[in-house]
Protein backbone atom coordinates (compact mmCIF):
# COMPACT_ATOMS: atom_id res chain seq x y z
CA UNK A 1 0.00 0.00 0.00
CA UNK A 2 1.01 3.58 -0.42
CA UNK A 3 2.08 5.58 2.62
CA UNK A 4 0.45 9.01 2.51
CA UNK A 5 1.25 10.26 5.96
CA UNK A 6 2.78 9.13 9.18
CA UNK A 7 1.12 5.84 10.10
CA UNK A 8 -1.47 6.10 7.31
CA UNK A 9 -1.45 3.85 4.25
CA UNK A 10 -4.03 3.70 1.48
CA UNK A 11 -4.99 1.53 -1.46
CA UNK A 12 -7.64 1.99 -4.12
CA UNK A 13 -10.21 -0.74 -4.60
CA UNK A 14 -11.30 -0.55 -8.22
CA UNK A 15 -14.69 -1.34 -9.68
CA UNK A 16 -13.48 -4.69 -10.98
CA UNK A 17 -12.38 -5.64 -7.47
CA UNK A 18 -8.67 -5.16 -8.13
CA UNK A 19 -6.49 -3.21 -5.79
CA UNK A 20 -4.16 -0.51 -7.03
CA UNK A 21 -1.30 1.20 -5.20
CA UNK A 22 0.19 -2.10 -4.12
CA UNK A 23 3.56 -0.61 -3.30
CA UNK A 24 6.44 -2.34 -1.65
CA UNK A 25 5.65 -0.88 1.72
CA UNK A 26 4.34 -3.61 3.92
CA UNK A 27 2.55 -2.87 7.16
CA UNK A 28 1.72 -6.49 7.83
CA UNK A 29 -1.79 -6.38 6.45
CA UNK A 30 -3.66 -8.29 3.81
CA UNK A 31 -6.39 -6.40 2.00
CA UNK A 32 -9.61 -8.44 1.82
CA UNK A 33 -11.13 -9.07 -1.59
CA UNK A 34 -13.61 -6.41 -2.72
CA UNK A 35 -16.39 -9.00 -2.69
CA UNK A 36 -15.70 -9.74 0.97
CA UNK A 37 -15.94 -6.05 1.72
CA UNK A 38 -19.45 -5.86 0.29
CA UNK A 39 -18.59 -3.19 -2.24
CA UNK A 40 -20.85 -3.40 -5.32
CA UNK A 41 -19.10 -3.99 -8.63
CA UNK A 42 -20.17 -0.63 -9.97
CA UNK A 43 -18.65 1.32 -7.10
CA UNK A 44 -15.15 2.06 -5.99
CA UNK A 45 -13.68 2.10 -2.53
CA UNK A 46 -10.70 3.45 -0.69
CA UNK A 47 -8.88 1.16 1.69
CA UNK A 48 -6.97 2.97 4.43
CA UNK A 49 -4.87 1.31 7.09
CA UNK A 50 -3.47 2.88 10.24
CA UNK A 51 -0.25 1.40 11.54
CA UNK A 52 0.11 3.43 14.75
CA UNK A 53 -0.31 1.36 17.94
CA UNK A 54 -2.35 4.13 19.56
CA UNK A 55 -4.84 6.39 17.78
CA UNK A 56 -3.93 9.83 19.03
CA UNK A 57 -3.39 13.38 17.88
CA UNK A 58 -0.45 12.37 15.65
CA UNK A 59 -2.96 11.26 12.99
CA UNK A 60 -4.52 14.66 12.69
CA UNK A 61 -3.58 16.31 9.43
CA UNK A 62 -2.49 12.99 7.94
CA UNK A 63 -5.86 12.14 6.47
CA UNK A 64 -5.67 14.73 3.69
CA UNK A 65 -5.35 12.00 1.08
CA UNK A 66 -8.63 10.38 2.12
CA UNK A 67 -10.44 13.71 2.15
CA UNK A 68 -9.00 14.79 -1.22
CA UNK A 69 -9.74 11.41 -2.79
CA UNK A 70 -13.34 11.50 -1.62
CA UNK A 71 -13.74 15.03 -2.92
CA UNK A 72 -12.20 14.35 -6.33
CA UNK A 73 -12.66 10.66 -7.11
CA UNK A 74 -16.06 10.31 -5.40
CA UNK A 75 -15.41 7.03 -3.64
CA UNK A 76 -18.58 5.56 -2.16
CA UNK A 77 -16.86 3.38 0.42
CA UNK A 78 -13.98 3.92 2.79
CA UNK A 79 -12.64 0.91 4.64
CA UNK A 80 -10.56 1.92 7.63
CA UNK A 81 -8.34 -0.91 8.78
CA UNK A 82 -7.38 -0.54 12.45
CA UNK A 83 -6.16 -4.08 12.97
CA UNK A 84 -2.71 -2.83 13.96
CA UNK A 85 -4.15 -0.30 16.41
CA UNK A 86 -4.24 -1.44 20.02
CA UNK A 87 -6.08 1.44 21.66
CA UNK A 88 -7.21 5.03 21.28
CA UNK A 89 -7.34 8.17 23.32
CA UNK A 90 -9.84 11.03 23.15
CA UNK A 91 -7.98 12.74 20.30
CA UNK A 92 -8.01 9.56 18.23
CA UNK A 93 -11.75 9.23 18.75
CA UNK A 94 -12.21 12.84 17.77
CA UNK A 95 -10.22 12.24 14.57
CA UNK A 96 -12.35 9.22 13.75
CA UNK A 97 -15.54 11.15 14.47
CA UNK A 98 -14.45 14.08 12.29
CA UNK A 99 -13.58 11.69 9.46
CA UNK A 100 -16.95 9.95 9.80
CA UNK A 101 -18.79 13.31 9.68
CA UNK A 102 -16.78 14.39 6.63
CA UNK A 103 -17.62 11.16 4.81
CA UNK A 104 -21.28 11.22 5.82
CA UNK A 105 -21.62 14.72 4.40
CA UNK A 106 -20.43 13.32 1.06
CA UNK A 107 -22.66 10.23 1.29
CA UNK A 108 -19.67 7.95 1.62
CA UNK A 109 -19.95 4.87 3.80
CA UNK A 110 -17.23 4.39 6.41
CA UNK A 111 -16.62 0.94 7.80
CA UNK A 112 -14.06 -0.06 10.35
CA UNK A 113 -12.05 -3.19 10.77
CA UNK A 114 -10.72 -3.53 14.31
CA UNK A 115 -9.68 -6.13 16.83
CA UNK A 116 -12.28 -6.91 19.55
CA UNK A 117 -10.72 -4.78 22.34
CA UNK A 118 -10.60 -1.68 20.12
CA UNK A 119 -14.09 -2.39 18.82
CA UNK A 120 -15.29 -2.46 22.43
CA UNK A 121 -13.62 0.89 23.13
CA UNK A 122 -15.20 2.41 20.00
CA UNK A 123 -18.64 1.14 20.98
CA UNK A 124 -18.06 2.60 24.45
CA UNK A 125 -17.44 5.92 22.70
CA UNK A 126 -20.77 5.67 20.88
CA UNK A 127 -19.92 3.94 17.60
CA UNK A 128 -22.75 1.72 16.45
CA UNK A 129 -22.39 -1.94 15.57
CA UNK A 130 -23.32 -1.20 11.95
CA UNK A 131 -19.99 0.58 11.54
CA UNK A 132 -18.25 -2.77 11.94
CA UNK A 133 -18.96 -5.16 9.10
CA UNK A 134 -19.05 -8.93 9.38
CA UNK A 135 -15.82 -9.31 7.42
CA UNK A 136 -13.93 -7.37 10.08
CA UNK A 137 -13.46 -10.46 12.22
CA UNK A 138 -9.76 -11.26 12.13
Amino acid at each position, binding site marked *: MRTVGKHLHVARILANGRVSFPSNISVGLEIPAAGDLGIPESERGLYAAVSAP*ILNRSLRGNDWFIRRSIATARYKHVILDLVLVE*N*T*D*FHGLQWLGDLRDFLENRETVLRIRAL*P*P*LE*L*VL*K*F*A*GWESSSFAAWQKV
Partner: protein
Amino acid sequence: MNYEAVISCAPVPWPGGHSFLLQEVGPKKVIEHWSDALTEASHSLTLCMNEPDHALLDYISSSFPLSKRVSVRLNVPPEAAEGCSFFETDGSIKLRSGATLQPFLPASNPAEVWFRVVKRWLEELETKGSSLPEIETQPTPGVVVGHHCRISPDTQLIPPCWIGNRATLRSCTIGPFAAVGEKSIVSQKTRITNSYVKSGTFVGEGLCLDGLVVGGKRILEHSTGRAAQIIDPSMLCPV
Protein backbone atom coordinates in the same frame (compact mmCIF):
# COMPACT_ATOMS: atom_id res chain seq x y z
CA MET B 1 -31.03 -26.82 57.14
CA ASN B 2 -27.47 -26.28 56.00
CA TYR B 3 -26.65 -25.96 52.32
CA GLU B 4 -23.13 -26.44 51.02
CA ALA B 5 -21.58 -24.83 47.98
CA VAL B 6 -18.39 -25.70 46.13
CA ILE B 7 -16.36 -22.56 45.51
CA SER B 8 -13.48 -22.30 43.11
CA CYS B 9 -11.64 -19.01 42.78
CA ALA B 10 -11.02 -18.92 39.07
CA PRO B 11 -9.53 -15.62 37.87
CA VAL B 12 -12.11 -13.20 36.52
CA PRO B 13 -11.42 -10.62 33.82
CA TRP B 14 -13.75 -7.90 34.98
CA PRO B 15 -12.87 -4.56 36.57
CA GLY B 16 -11.55 -4.87 40.10
CA GLY B 17 -10.25 -8.39 39.61
CA HIS B 18 -12.07 -9.79 42.65
CA SER B 19 -13.77 -13.15 42.65
CA PHE B 20 -17.39 -13.55 41.62
CA LEU B 21 -18.66 -13.54 45.19
CA LEU B 22 -17.05 -10.19 45.98
CA GLN B 23 -18.52 -8.36 42.99
CA GLU B 24 -20.85 -5.48 43.78
CA VAL B 25 -24.59 -5.81 43.48
CA GLY B 26 -25.69 -2.36 44.59
CA PRO B 27 -24.58 -1.63 48.15
CA LYS B 28 -23.84 -5.30 48.87
CA LYS B 29 -21.66 -8.06 47.49
CA VAL B 30 -22.87 -11.19 45.71
CA ILE B 31 -22.02 -13.32 48.78
CA GLU B 32 -24.36 -11.17 50.91
CA HIS B 33 -27.22 -11.57 48.43
CA TRP B 34 -26.61 -15.29 48.46
CA SER B 35 -26.61 -15.54 52.25
CA ASP B 36 -29.70 -13.25 52.43
CA ALA B 37 -31.60 -15.66 50.20
CA LEU B 38 -30.78 -18.52 52.56
CA THR B 39 -31.24 -16.57 55.80
CA GLU B 40 -34.75 -15.49 54.70
CA ALA B 41 -35.68 -19.17 54.58
CA SER B 42 -33.88 -19.89 57.90
CA HIS B 43 -31.12 -21.85 56.23
CA SER B 44 -27.36 -21.59 56.65
CA LEU B 45 -24.60 -21.76 54.05
CA THR B 46 -21.22 -23.49 54.12
CA LEU B 47 -18.73 -22.51 51.44
CA CYS B 48 -16.44 -25.40 50.53
CA MET B 49 -13.37 -23.93 48.87
CA ASN B 50 -11.29 -25.97 46.47
CA GLU B 51 -8.42 -23.57 47.05
CA PRO B 52 -8.34 -20.65 49.51
CA ASP B 53 -9.59 -17.33 48.21
CA HIS B 54 -7.90 -15.01 50.68
CA ALA B 55 -9.86 -11.91 49.72
CA LEU B 56 -13.14 -13.74 50.26
CA LEU B 57 -11.93 -15.27 53.53
CA ASP B 58 -10.84 -11.85 54.78
CA TYR B 59 -14.16 -10.31 53.79
CA ILE B 60 -16.20 -12.96 55.55
CA SER B 61 -14.09 -12.94 58.69
CA SER B 62 -13.71 -9.18 59.03
CA SER B 63 -16.60 -7.33 57.48
CA PHE B 64 -19.35 -9.85 56.88
CA PRO B 65 -22.27 -9.30 59.27
CA LEU B 66 -22.35 -11.86 62.08
CA SER B 67 -26.11 -12.23 61.69
CA LYS B 68 -25.58 -13.95 58.35
CA ARG B 69 -25.08 -17.63 58.84
CA VAL B 70 -22.16 -18.37 56.56
CA SER B 71 -19.22 -20.62 57.37
CA VAL B 72 -16.19 -21.62 55.35
CA ARG B 73 -14.52 -25.02 54.90
CA LEU B 74 -11.21 -25.33 53.09
CA ASN B 75 -11.96 -28.58 51.32
CA VAL B 76 -14.81 -30.31 49.56
CA PRO B 77 -16.39 -33.18 51.56
CA PRO B 78 -16.40 -36.47 49.66
CA GLU B 79 -19.80 -37.56 50.96
CA ALA B 80 -23.14 -36.18 49.86
CA ALA B 81 -24.20 -33.03 51.67
CA GLU B 82 -27.46 -32.23 53.41
CA GLY B 83 -28.19 -29.85 50.60
CA CYS B 84 -26.49 -27.95 47.84
CA SER B 85 -26.79 -24.30 46.75
CA PHE B 86 -25.63 -22.78 43.47
CA PHE B 87 -26.31 -20.09 40.87
CA GLU B 88 -28.28 -20.83 37.73
CA THR B 89 -27.43 -19.32 34.34
CA ASP B 90 -30.36 -16.90 34.72
CA GLY B 91 -28.85 -15.49 37.93
CA SER B 92 -31.25 -17.18 40.31
CA ILE B 93 -30.07 -18.94 43.46
CA LYS B 94 -31.03 -22.62 43.68
CA LEU B 95 -31.33 -24.85 46.73
CA ARG B 96 -31.30 -28.58 46.22
CA SER B 97 -31.90 -30.93 49.13
CA GLY B 98 -29.83 -34.07 49.41
CA ALA B 99 -28.11 -33.43 46.16
CA THR B 100 -24.53 -34.22 45.45
CA LEU B 101 -22.37 -31.12 45.44
CA GLN B 102 -21.83 -29.19 42.24
CA PRO B 103 -19.85 -26.03 41.37
CA PHE B 104 -21.56 -22.84 42.52
CA LEU B 105 -21.38 -21.28 39.04
CA PRO B 106 -22.55 -22.68 35.70
CA ALA B 107 -19.92 -23.27 33.05
CA SER B 108 -20.99 -20.18 31.09
CA ASN B 109 -19.37 -16.74 31.28
CA PRO B 110 -19.36 -15.64 34.99
CA ALA B 111 -19.78 -11.97 34.08
CA GLU B 112 -23.04 -12.81 32.32
CA VAL B 113 -24.33 -14.69 35.37
CA TRP B 114 -23.29 -11.82 37.61
CA PHE B 115 -25.14 -9.24 35.51
CA ARG B 116 -28.25 -11.42 35.58
CA VAL B 117 -28.00 -11.37 39.39
CA VAL B 118 -27.82 -7.57 39.12
CA LYS B 119 -30.84 -7.46 36.79
CA ARG B 120 -32.91 -9.57 39.15
CA TRP B 121 -31.95 -7.29 42.02
CA LEU B 122 -32.87 -4.18 39.98
CA GLU B 123 -36.25 -5.67 39.09
CA GLU B 124 -37.00 -6.26 42.77
CA LEU B 125 -35.88 -2.79 43.87
CA GLU B 126 -39.31 -1.24 43.41
CA THR B 127 -40.98 -3.62 45.82
CA LYS B 128 -38.16 -4.53 48.19
CA GLY B 129 -35.92 -1.46 48.13
CA SER B 130 -32.23 -1.94 48.78
CA SER B 131 -30.50 -2.56 52.08
CA LEU B 132 -31.04 0.91 53.51
CA PRO B 133 -34.56 2.00 52.53
CA GLU B 134 -34.71 4.58 55.33
CA ILE B 135 -32.07 6.80 53.71
CA GLU B 136 -32.88 6.14 50.06
CA THR B 137 -35.56 7.75 47.95
CA GLN B 138 -37.64 6.47 45.06
CA PRO B 139 -38.48 9.53 42.95
CA THR B 140 -40.40 7.27 40.59
CA PRO B 141 -41.22 3.58 41.03
CA GLY B 142 -38.17 1.48 40.26
CA VAL B 143 -35.70 4.37 40.50
CA VAL B 144 -33.77 4.18 43.77
CA VAL B 145 -31.43 7.03 44.67
CA GLY B 146 -29.05 6.93 47.63
CA HIS B 147 -28.21 9.76 50.01
CA HIS B 148 -26.01 12.79 49.29
CA CYS B 149 -26.30 12.36 45.52
CA ARG B 150 -25.96 15.33 43.18
CA ILE B 151 -28.20 14.96 40.15
CA SER B 152 -28.78 17.74 37.62
CA PRO B 153 -32.44 18.46 36.81
CA ASP B 154 -32.11 17.40 33.16
CA THR B 155 -30.81 13.94 34.03
CA GLN B 156 -33.14 11.17 32.88
CA LEU B 157 -33.62 8.22 35.21
CA ILE B 158 -35.46 5.33 33.57
CA PRO B 159 -36.56 2.44 35.81
CA PRO B 160 -35.29 0.07 36.89
CA CYS B 161 -32.10 1.77 37.97
CA TRP B 162 -30.10 2.37 41.12
CA ILE B 163 -27.88 5.32 42.03
CA GLY B 164 -25.47 4.74 44.91
CA ASN B 165 -24.74 7.15 47.74
CA ARG B 166 -22.75 10.29 46.93
CA ALA B 167 -22.93 9.74 43.18
CA THR B 168 -22.88 12.73 40.83
CA LEU B 169 -24.91 12.69 37.61
CA ARG B 170 -24.81 15.55 35.17
CA SER B 171 -27.22 15.78 32.21
CA CYS B 172 -27.05 12.08 31.39
CA THR B 173 -29.48 9.23 30.81
CA ILE B 174 -29.44 6.31 33.24
CA GLY B 175 -31.49 3.15 32.72
CA PRO B 176 -33.23 0.92 32.15
CA PHE B 177 -31.29 -1.81 33.95
CA ALA B 178 -28.46 0.44 35.02
CA ALA B 179 -26.61 0.82 38.29
CA VAL B 180 -24.22 3.61 39.23
CA GLY B 181 -22.05 2.73 42.21
CA GLU B 182 -21.29 4.88 45.22
CA LYS B 183 -19.16 8.01 44.75
CA SER B 184 -19.20 7.61 40.97
CA ILE B 185 -19.39 10.53 38.56
CA VAL B 186 -21.21 10.41 35.22
CA SER B 187 -20.66 13.31 32.84
CA GLN B 188 -23.06 14.99 30.47
CA LYS B 189 -24.57 13.41 27.34
CA THR B 190 -23.56 9.93 28.49
CA ARG B 191 -26.14 7.14 28.18
CA ILE B 192 -26.03 4.12 30.46
CA THR B 193 -28.35 1.20 29.73
CA ASN B 194 -28.07 -2.44 30.69
CA SER B 195 -24.76 -1.60 32.36
CA TYR B 196 -23.03 -1.26 35.71
CA VAL B 197 -20.71 1.54 36.77
CA LYS B 198 -18.67 0.27 39.69
CA SER B 199 -18.15 2.37 42.81
CA GLY B 200 -15.72 5.27 42.60
CA THR B 201 -15.59 5.52 38.83
CA PHE B 202 -15.49 8.63 36.67
CA VAL B 203 -17.31 8.24 33.35
CA GLY B 204 -16.57 10.93 30.77
CA GLU B 205 -18.73 12.95 28.42
CA GLY B 206 -20.81 11.72 25.47
CA LEU B 207 -20.17 8.01 26.01
CA CYS B 208 -22.50 5.12 25.37
CA LEU B 209 -22.55 2.30 27.90
CA ASP B 210 -24.76 -0.50 26.65
CA GLY B 211 -24.14 -3.98 27.98
CA LEU B 212 -20.95 -2.97 29.78
CA VAL B 213 -19.40 -3.13 33.23
CA VAL B 214 -16.99 -0.28 33.84
CA GLY B 215 -14.64 0.34 36.72
CA GLY B 216 -11.13 1.64 37.24
CA LYS B 217 -9.73 1.93 33.75
CA ARG B 218 -11.36 -1.16 32.31
CA ILE B 219 -14.55 -1.97 30.46
CA LEU B 220 -16.10 -5.39 30.09
CA GLU B 221 -18.92 -6.59 27.87
CA HIS B 222 -20.85 -8.80 30.29
CA SER B 223 -22.59 -10.87 27.63
CA THR B 224 -19.34 -12.01 26.00
CA GLY B 225 -16.68 -11.48 28.67
CA ARG B 226 -14.62 -9.33 26.26
CA ALA B 227 -12.58 -6.71 28.09
CA ALA B 228 -10.62 -3.62 27.09
CA GLN B 229 -8.58 -0.94 28.78
CA ILE B 230 -9.33 2.76 28.47
CA ILE B 231 -6.11 4.75 28.31
CA ASP B 232 -7.61 8.24 28.34
CA PRO B 233 -8.56 9.40 31.86
CA SER B 234 -10.99 11.92 30.38
CA MET B 235 -13.13 8.96 29.29
CA LEU B 236 -12.85 6.62 32.27
CA CYS B 237 -10.77 6.55 35.42
CA PRO B 238 -11.01 5.86 39.14
CA VAL B 239 -12.23 8.85 41.18
